[in-house]
């Protein structure tokens, strides 16, 4: 479970972002939703960390916790620490916290149309960041907005700066969102399913833009997604989430070559691939659990082909698989021995 103690960088607060044992719950009238149950990870500069999970795995909630945008109530961060260059964000008061939002950590969302205000021009919305945080004048802000629109490769930025969100296509709106997120040069960009709502050709453009921008600015990128193929394409490291926990983490090459957790393995054998025909799909049986009633022991045990009695009782810690790799499975060695679970070179 504890990936921090043996991490020399963490002790000196040198990671760009260090998430430690984060717990988030939502108290609803139907009961408590345990959305995030003790996750830890770190992010460095120039690094792309993918948080991979299905709906209800808690992946988006963990990002909202980092941004500090969880509605409370019903949401509560009950435990953990979020260290940005060593400073625990959870210990800050609201006004100090606000100075991190947007300036140090920025976020883009899946649905760019609802995230933009329909009654203001895109130029105004991009420029607003400069007026609010940097005290820029209207004309300065507009100039900055055009600059940023150029940077995210919106063609004819000068002419389009006065247009409204509905006049942009889905891909262009996502670029506007990225421009707004990048306006104050954040150190971390969190992208929550940034391409899920987009067509595949546009999706490729946006992912390419993000990695180019990361190369220019050196920011750390947290990519939250359910799409294994997108992760394979861009991520350095991947953390797989299930039922509010990280079940496996490691470099994307290691994890994709041979999964060390049955859930990761199951995901990989259940997706159809564009470069393979007619391969039998082996779906994971059943459905993900409700976050209100997470099974005892290992949360994955009801769906797991490796499950034994111990899995129904003992919650597996994050075992060390290799120096850079962890798996929350009692039988990770057995899972590793099953080489069919990988995607690399599986064609």
């Amino acid at each position, binding site marked *: 479970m504890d990936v921090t103690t043996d991490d020399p960088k963490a002790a000196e607060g040198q990671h760009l972002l260090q998430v430690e044992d984060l717990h988030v719950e939502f108290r609803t009238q139907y009961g408590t939703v345990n959305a995030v149950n003790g996750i830890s990870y770190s992010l460095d500069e120039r690094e792309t960390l993918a948080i991979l999970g299905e709906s209800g795995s808690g992946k988006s909630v963990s990002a909202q916790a980092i941004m500090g945008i969880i509605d409370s109530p019903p949401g509560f961060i009950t435990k953990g620490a979020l260290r940005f260059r060593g400073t625990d964000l959870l210990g800050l008061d609201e006004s100090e916290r606000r100075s991190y939002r947007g300036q140090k950590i920025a976020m883009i969302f899946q649905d760019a149309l609802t995230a933009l205000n329909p009654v203001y021009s895109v130029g105004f919305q991009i420029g607003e960041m400069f007026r609010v945080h940097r005290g820029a004048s209207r004309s300065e802000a507009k100039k900055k907005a055009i600059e940023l629109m150029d940077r995210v490769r919106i063609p004819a930025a000068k002419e389009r700066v006065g247009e409204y969100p509905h006049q942009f296509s889905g891909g262009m709106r996502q670029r506007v969102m990225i421009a707004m997120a990048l306006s104050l040069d954040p150190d971390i960009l969190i992208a929550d399913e940034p391409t899920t709502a987009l*067509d595949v050709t546009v999706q490729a453009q946006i992912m390419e833009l993000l990695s180019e921008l990361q190369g220019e600015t050196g920011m750390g990128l947290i990519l939250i997604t359910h799409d294994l193929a*997108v992760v394979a394409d861009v991520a350095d490291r991947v953390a797989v989430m299930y039922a509010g926990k990280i079940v496996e983490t490691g470099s994307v090459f290691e994890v994709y*070559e041979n999964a060390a957790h049955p859930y990761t393995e199951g995901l990989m054998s259940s*997706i159809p691939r564009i470069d393979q025909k007619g391969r039998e799909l082996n779906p994971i049986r059943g*459905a993900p659990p409700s976050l209100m009633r997470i099974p005892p022991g290992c949360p994955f045990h009801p769906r797991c082909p490796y499950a034994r009695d111990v899995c129904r009782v003992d919650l597996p810690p994050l075992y060390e698989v290799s120096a850079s790799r962890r798996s929350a499975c009692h039988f990770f060695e057995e899972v590793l021995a099953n080489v069919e679970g990988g995607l690399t070179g599986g064609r």
Partner: protein
Amino acid sequence: MADEGNGRPAPERDVILKVENLVKHFPLTQGIVFKKHVGAVKAVEGVSFDLYRGETLGLVGESGCGKSTVAKLLLRLEEATSGSAIYDGKDIFKLPRKELRALRRNIQIVFQDPYASLNPRMTVGDIVAEPWEIHQGRMGKAERRSRVQDLLARVGLDPDHVNRYPHQFSGGQRQRIGIARALALNPDIIICDEPVSALDVSVQAQVVNLLNALQSDFNLSYIFIAHDLAVVRHISDRVAVMYLGKIMEVGNQDQIYDRPTHPYTQALLSAVPVPDPAVRGERKRMVLTGDVPSPANPPSGCVFRTRCWKAQEKCAEEVPALENRGFDHPSACHFAEIERVVPV
């Protein structure tokens, strides 16, 4: 499951549905009381294809290409502007009301959103039995309950759950209920409109496998509409690629995925990420510039020319027909040539 032919399946296989020159224009109007036509959105513009008995035809394309409109037209949920679709010797667009009801039994649909496609006020039993309520005489009242339970079991649900409501099921299970409803009248054709795109990754495969199994059991033909090219490759025998209301290229899955000849097909395939970090950076990407033009005002000649790297003057003047251009399958490009974009 794969269809081993060169472009066309073997000639003895019978065509169950023949669609020719299908056109749908949605009129654009202004004014509330006195409506004035100011143009038309050309959602579907001359689509032709054959569907063979027992096969799966994949219909792929990006949003707004008209693929879902084709589905609605074939079910007559929308009225076609022109064209024909011959099923069982009759044009379904010209059927009188009474015969249309009979047709409904034979062509069914499975929707994308399992949360929106089931009436939340009805029990699962009522939902699955509704087809028999509508087509009285098809199934005696006494048998219905046990037949509903058979169907539920067949799609992988607990038959004892007939009295539950849709919200008591997960997304994947709801999609199974939708499939059971579509099966109730023993249709010949099921149109699957993005049936797995709203589902979680680990559940998608369950539904894809179920559809595959049902196809052989019930001798079904599927028209499988999707934007996910990987899923379509997995399930389809043949694939038609649509762009701005037209079919750009059609062929069996090897022809489309391994030997695409149309630049749009190539761009589309090259954009799909492969879940293998080892091929990162090695693949050729054909990045399309600009946006899809408005279907209210499509480009002259070839509709893809505004975003095509091969476009020449001829493309603006002459509409390229979907025809054989010296390769093993038809393509609607004046300058069609094979380029492999999916890694082997």
